[in-house]
């Protein structure tokens, strides 16, 4: 194409665009030098400085994030450990409570059993005592009634204490003798209670 241009231009005096003009070279060199120096000394160092700072900032942020991550992980581990500890403790407490409860129940059972025995014994004793007192009072009563009855029957006053007592005793002895086939301790008891009968008669 260029050859065509040149060929077409040969009719008149013209220039070959491939042959550099001195001024062209000089000004090209000057502008290139200016711009190389400008980029070399001014723009690129600034750019590099900024890029370094940026890289530093990014690295700093990454380090910060890593640190935060590590902290969070440590906290999580701590919480987990605490939770496990609390759980173990709760289990221990529960077991202890269960053991205590068992102990308390068995103790209560024991206590109840002994109390029951005691109450039963006391009731037995009271019943016995009441039976005795009833027996005694019955005997006195029976004696008085019998004497009254006898007095009215024999017409003899048995107001004399000595006589009366003797009579009752002999009567009772007869009664005992009549009863002697039934119970032996029953025969003993009226003997033991003789003073009480005497007292009641008075």
């Amino acid at each position: 194409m260029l050859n065509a241009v040149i060929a077409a231009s040969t009719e008149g005096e013209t220039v070959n665009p491939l042959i550099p003009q001195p001024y062209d070279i000089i000004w090209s060199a000057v502008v290139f030098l200016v711009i190389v120096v400008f980029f070399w000394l001014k723009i690129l160092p600034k750019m590099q400085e900024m890029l370094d700072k940026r890289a530093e900032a990014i690295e700093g942020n990454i380090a910060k994030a890593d640190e935060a991550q590590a902290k969070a992980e440590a906290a999580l581990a701590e919480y987990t450990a605490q939770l496990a500890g609390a759980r173990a403790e709760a289990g221990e407490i529960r077991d202890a409570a269960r053991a205590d409860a068992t102990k308390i129940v068995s103790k209560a059972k024991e206590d109840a059993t002994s109390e029951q025995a005691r109450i039963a014994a006391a009731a037995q004793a009271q019943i016995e005592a009441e039976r005795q007192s009833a027996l005694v009072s019955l005997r006195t009563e029976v004696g008085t009634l019998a004497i009254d009855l006898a007095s009215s029957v024999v017409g003899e006053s048995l107001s004399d204490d000595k006589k009366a007592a003797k009579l009752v005793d002999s009567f009772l002895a007869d009664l005992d003798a009549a009863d002697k086939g039934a119970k032996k301790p029953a025969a003993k008891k009226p003997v033991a209670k003789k003073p009480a009968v005497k007292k009641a008669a008075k």
Partner: protein
Amino acid sequence: MWVDHTSTQERTLLASAATWLLPFTSSGEGDSGFHAPSINEFFPEAIFFADTIFEVNRIVLIRFVMLALLLVFFWLGTRRMKIVPTRGQSIVEMALDFVRVNVAEDLLGKKDGRRFLPILTAMFFLILVYNITGIIPFLNIAASSTVGLPLTLAIVSYVTFIYAGIKKSPKNFFKNSLFPAGVPWPVYIIVTPIELISTFVIRPVTLTLRLLMNMVVGHLLLVLFFSATQFFFFNADGFLKLFGVGSLAFGFVFSIFEILVAVLQAYVFTLLTAVYIQLALAEEH
């Protein structure tokens, strides 16, 4: 000097260029007002210091303006850099990271990438802004479309990769460049001269020509489409005016295409430089 702007010459040239570029409008050329693109557009009249080696013309002026804009953009963009970027800083960072990550670090690794980053960055952005002026209204010509700039950058690239290779290990560098491994020795008789030419001659030449020709042709195409549109709309008669719609549409499409080319050529130039450095630094091919 090189360019003699006499009106007769220019007219002849215009005519010839038009014949070359636009054969189907040959009927409308000449005095009808059609401005055909020509190679002389890349050699405008001097504005300052005419006829010295410090001559400044329109294209050089565009270079100054774009250089100033580039410096201001990056100076403002990196004045207060924050770790959390603002919207403006993100754009500057994205631009710088494109070269840093996609070219330098990708090909050269972190360590060597940083060493050659200033050169690669300067190259990329200089070519990019100079290419893009081709479609900026009122500038309307790529500042990289005269051979000086592509050639200068190609020489920088050339010197850089040779420097990188020799600094690392001169023996390895020349051995890898001239005597590729895994080739039976008689083949070196053919391979070595080819490698010599391809590495030390062809590389800078292709770098220069690829960029230069892309920009030159892009500019010529745009001039062609837009001057044709002008011609069709205002100088042609009757239904020929309709062609103007077509040429305008093509001009529009090619303007957008030029943006792509501008970015692509800047990327390719920088990438190839990085690749050459990488090959020079390689222990073994």
